[in-house]
């Protein structure tokens, strides 16, 4: 079991958070918007906290917020806010200031995802996946025909 800190509780961040918690990991979520907490509760039998999750309201870039959310003892850091630049910055803060062993960062822009990946960061680019899926779908025969 590892302690995972997820910054950004959007569609991606909240889903990953719930799955990791269900998988037996310790999960802390940081988001600046208190309402984003609802995504963690939606469709669940118990509240996020009752299920054992942590939630901190704070700006991703604020050191105090990151510390409050537990970055100092995080084994894994996931940067999944809706901003590429915020994600790339906080991912490097997690790596270099807090020495988090594993850092994953979502980058929507394929060009920078590729470059930062070449610099040794573990980037995930949903845009590239979408492009790939579309191309695969188009190459396959039309469903129902």
């Amino acid at each position, binding site marked *: 079991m590892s302690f995972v800190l997820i910054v950004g509780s959007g569609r991606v961040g909240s889903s990953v958070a719930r799955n990791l918690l269900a998988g037996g990991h310790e999960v802390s979520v940081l988001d600046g918007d208190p309402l984003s907490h609802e995504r963690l509760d939606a469709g669940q039998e118990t509240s996020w906290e009752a299920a054992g999750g942590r939630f901190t309201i704070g700006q991703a870039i604020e050191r105090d917020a990151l510390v409050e959310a537990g970055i100092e003892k995080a084994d894994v850091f996931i940067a999944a806010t809706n901003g590429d*630049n915020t994600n790339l910055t906080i991912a490097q803060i997690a790596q*270099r200031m807090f020495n988090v062993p594993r850092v994953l960062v979502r980058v929507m822009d394929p060009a920078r995802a590729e470059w930062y990946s070449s610099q040794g960061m573990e980037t995930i680019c949903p845009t590239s996946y979408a492009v790939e899926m579309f191309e695969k779908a188009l190459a396959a025969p039309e469903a129902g025909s």
Partner: protein
Amino acid sequence: MYVVVIGGGKVGLNLTRELLAKGTEVTLVESRRDRYLRMDAELGFVVQYGDGTELWVLERAGIQRADLVVAVTGDDEDNILICQVARDKYQVERFISRVNNPRNRQYFELLDIRPAFSATDLILRLIEHEVPDYGLVHLLDLPDEQLEVIEIIVCEGCRAAGLEVQQLELPEGSIVISVLRDEGGFVPKGDTVINAGDEVLVCLDPGLEPQVTALFEAAK
């Protein structure tokens, strides 16, 4: 010299105007459409529309041949990444960044984005200079050149008060470069006497500050 300025707010726009007036070749990149159109009407082809954190936008602006990149957007993460990419991907040798929130300065330092200027810090520095409540002011820090200039008030009863400059037990690597007295300033000679109430500017190697200030602080 070719300069690429990212961010067409007050700082970026006025900087661009000044550089153009000096005959420098400049490209200004602005991501907000309304701002871009307004500036385009004034500056024409100097201004380009686009998100200056995207690689293709930077390449279109000619970052590969830039001698200087100036990142002055209103967003610190953007400024950090622009400089990082300019340095590490495009080998731009000189860049200057703006720090919008002084609390983010630690991240600029963490990622070695220097120099980074914050308007808040600059104004604070001026306040410290104008309001003599503070005994010590950092006037200039040049970490790369291994040089600092500080301004110190000569306190009543300190070790330096009443001594000639040449009698001061300043550590090797430090020198008094100016004495401010009676609304004026002058470069001291060896036999200039330092009085309590003077302010002195000292040029020193980094790390010597505690030894230097000890001479000018009131005896405890």
